[in-house]
């Protein structure tokens, strides 16, 4: 995909190398020496390291913009016959954009965490983990082959596990951590198989070689369980399983809401801005493969659509502020997959970038409120909030910006990216584009609705949490608010790099990413008027959602109870998250445990196998007892046995010859 104007650099480049390894170094040092020597200064090293990473990534970004591409291996990681995998880096526009976003957002969140995590006994641990996470995320993004992608993939999962279970004394936290890891593992199961099949069919794991060999498998079919399966579809589908796990898409989405047990900065960084987008990144990275199979594109779009709609429907019913935002994340991730599924990879990536800022901001803002209420039994409950507008102005304004951005109000970052997706979906050459567009439109208004539900419930009305706050509610410390402000700026400005040409913009992002991701797959004649119309509709949808939220939560609060009473079944259905947890519990977890305990352990292992083993010992024992009885001690009987022995001899003799 690399076009001519790029200069390929295959030598080792220390700057690129340092981008991920500075955080790693900081993390290791903090982890080993943090407890003894750094204590409450543990944040220093990671923050400095990350700052430099950020600067380096901007340097690298500029170099990439100027037409350089880095592709080199540090060393050969695994080498076995025709399998050769290195640990290496591929810096092209896609990864350059990603690393800039990742380092930027994580730097801000690091700073924020200094305030948020202050005084926690595991302070050093937190920074060590979070730096480690950044390392793995960068390795994931920068990898030039599938195995290293897998390394980063699992590594971020691991850090996510650590950080979700950061407060490990809390049962729910460690449960959630474990759940996250295992659900991810299920996805990775498919991902690993995908890697294997990629190697099987293509004989390599390097991206560039994969892309160059793709034509070989374009028309290949293989028989799986009696069905003829298109090989690209098979590989892509298996890899996509991993994406479903990591990006919490439809059947494997259950871990993400639970992951909110972790500290809020973690939710912001890992479960909103960076890690969960790895799936989208992977799909974009491997888009030539995905594009080979229309069925696969449909599945991507379809899964995205389901997730998007489902989580948007669940979000308004939740009372846990972080969960609401988490469902919103799910929904937005679904959006990105929808974009990928209609071939709008650039739009997806664009949304990924803008989403990072406003979603991180949403979380951090929520974290700011939670920080205020941290003495409450459940500080995340929006029912104890309210009226915080006057006490926490910065938080309010930044959160408002984020909400406006996510709702797609023009001028904010979300508007541009979301609009791009909807437009490209509408004009997509894939037949399901229109449907995706329609769904996207509906979800856009739902998104606006629940986003503003938070705003209205938390910042308007009466404050209900007096008993949990000492004195007046107050604004968070500056170390927390400054990152909020920066993120708010990001939530506005990030969109400006992709102002479409219709609105007179240059659409830098598209130009930048086209060499990697290719032009949008749209039908050719797109009239400007149609684009305007679509834009208008999407803005309208957002505004409708905000209006509805205003109606229900400010104007007529009784409507809320009325609604939840009257459509009770639907409400419960939504409130219980479509019963997915219960479904998995009763269909997968319980039967597995039951089979393990009752069938495998009790019947097979203890009864059958051990029965045979111990049974043979017992048989010997019983035989011995029987023989002892025969051994009467009477000499006449001894003689009789001798006679029997003679008979045996004679019998054998008779049968000889």
């Amino acid at each position: 995909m690399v076009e001519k104007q790029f200069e390929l650099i295959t030598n080792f480049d220390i700057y690129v190398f340092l981008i991920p390894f500075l955080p790693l170094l900081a993390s290791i040092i903090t982890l080993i020496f943090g407890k003894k020597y750094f204590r409450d200064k543990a944040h220093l090293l990671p923050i400095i390291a990350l700052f430099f990473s950020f600067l380096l990534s901007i340097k690298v970004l500029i170099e990439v913009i100027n037409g350089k591409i880095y592709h080199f291996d540090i060393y050969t990681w695994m080498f076995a016959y025709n399998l050769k995998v290195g640990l290496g880096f591929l810096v092209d526009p896609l990864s350059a954009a990603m690393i800039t976003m990742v380092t930027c957002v994580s730097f801000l969140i690091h700073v924020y965490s200094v305030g948020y995590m202050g005084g926690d006994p595991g302070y050093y641990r937190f920074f060590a983990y979070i730096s480690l996470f950044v390392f793995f995320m960068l390795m994931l993004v920068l990898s030039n082959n599938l195995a290293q992608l897998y390394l980063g993939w699992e590594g971020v999962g691991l850090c996510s596990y650590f950080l979700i279970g950061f407060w490990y004394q809390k049962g729910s936290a460690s449960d959630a951590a474990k759940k996250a890891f295992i659900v991810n593992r299920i996805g990775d199961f498919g991902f690993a198989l995908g890697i294997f099949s990629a190697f099987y069919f293509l004989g390599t794991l390097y991206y560039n070689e994969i892309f160059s060999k793709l034509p070989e498998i374009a028309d290949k079919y293989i028989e799986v369980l009696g069905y003829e399966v298109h090989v690209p579809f098979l590989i892509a589908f298996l890899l996509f399983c991993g994406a479903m796990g990591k990006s919490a898409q439809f059947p494997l989405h259950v871990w993400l809401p639970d992951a909110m047990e972790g500290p809020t900065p973690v939710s912001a960084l890992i479960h909103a801005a960076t890690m969960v987008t790895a799936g989208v990144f992977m799909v974009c990275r491997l888009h030539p493969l995905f594009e080979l199979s229309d069925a696969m594109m449909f599945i991507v779009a379809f899964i995205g659509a389901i997730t998007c709609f489902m989580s948007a429907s669940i979000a308004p019913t939740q009372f846990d502020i972080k969960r609401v935002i988490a469902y919103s994340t799910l929904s937005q991730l679904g959006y990105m997959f929808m974009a990928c599924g209609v071939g709008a990879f650039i739009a997806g990536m664009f949304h990924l970038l803008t989403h990072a800022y406003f979603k991180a901001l949403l979380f951090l803002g929520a974290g700011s409120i939670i920080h205020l209420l941290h003495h409450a039994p459940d500080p995340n409950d929006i029912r104890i909030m309210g009226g915080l507008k006057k006490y926490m102005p910065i938080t309010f304004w930044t959160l408002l910006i984020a909400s406006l951005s996510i709702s797609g109000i023009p001028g904010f970052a979300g508007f541009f990216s979301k609009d791009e997706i909807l437009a490209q979906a509408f004009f997509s050459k894939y037949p399901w584009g229109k449907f995706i567009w329609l769904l996207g439109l509906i979800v856009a208004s739902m998104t606006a609705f629940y986003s503003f539900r938070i705003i209205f419930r938390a910042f308007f009305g009466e404050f209900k949490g007096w008993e949990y706050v000492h004195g007046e509610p107050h604004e968070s410390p500056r170390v927390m608010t400054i990152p909020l402000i920066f993120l708010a700026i990001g939530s506005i400005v990030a969109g400006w790099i992709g102002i479409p040409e219709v609105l007179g913009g240059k659409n830098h992002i598209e130009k930048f990413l086209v060499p990697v991701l290719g032009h949008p797959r749209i039908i050719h004649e797109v009239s400007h008027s149609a684009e305007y119309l679509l834009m208008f509709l999407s803005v309208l949808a957002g505004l409708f959602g905000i209006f509805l939220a205003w109606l229900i939560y400010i104007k007529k609060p009784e409507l809320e109870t009325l609604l939840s009473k009257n459509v009770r079944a639907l409400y419960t259905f939504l409130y219980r998250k479509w019963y997915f947890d219960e479904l998995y519990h009763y269909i997968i977890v319980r039967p597995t445990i039951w089979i393990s305990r009752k069938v495998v352990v009790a019947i097979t292992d203890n009864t059958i196998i051990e029965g045979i083993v111990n049974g043979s010992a017992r048989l010997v024992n019983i035989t011995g007892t029987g023989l002892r009885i025969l051994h009467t001690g009477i000499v006449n009987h001894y003689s009789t046995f001798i006679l029997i022995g003679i008979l045996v001899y004679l019998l054998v003799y008779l049968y000889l010859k």
Partner: protein
Amino acid sequence: MPSLEQYIILSIILFLIGLFGFLSRRNLIVILISIEIMLNGLIVLFAAISHFTKDISGYIIVFFIIAMAAAEAAIGLSLVVLIYKRLRTVYSDEITNFKG
């Protein structure tokens, strides 16, 4: 003149009678005597073979058997007497301290 077969049959019958006594009687003395009966059967066997084959070895074996019988009787009887003195019984089914 009776044939060799007749002598052999006689010897087998004697042997079997002795064997049955050996197997079935409880009295140790009778068991020892049964051994003598069996040996007598064998004496007949060897003597007869020797006689009919005109070979001297059989007779010499008979001589040895008689001597062995004496030795065995001496040992057996001394054991029986000792057992009677020590364990107050000469019945084989009462001498079952070791079994199993």
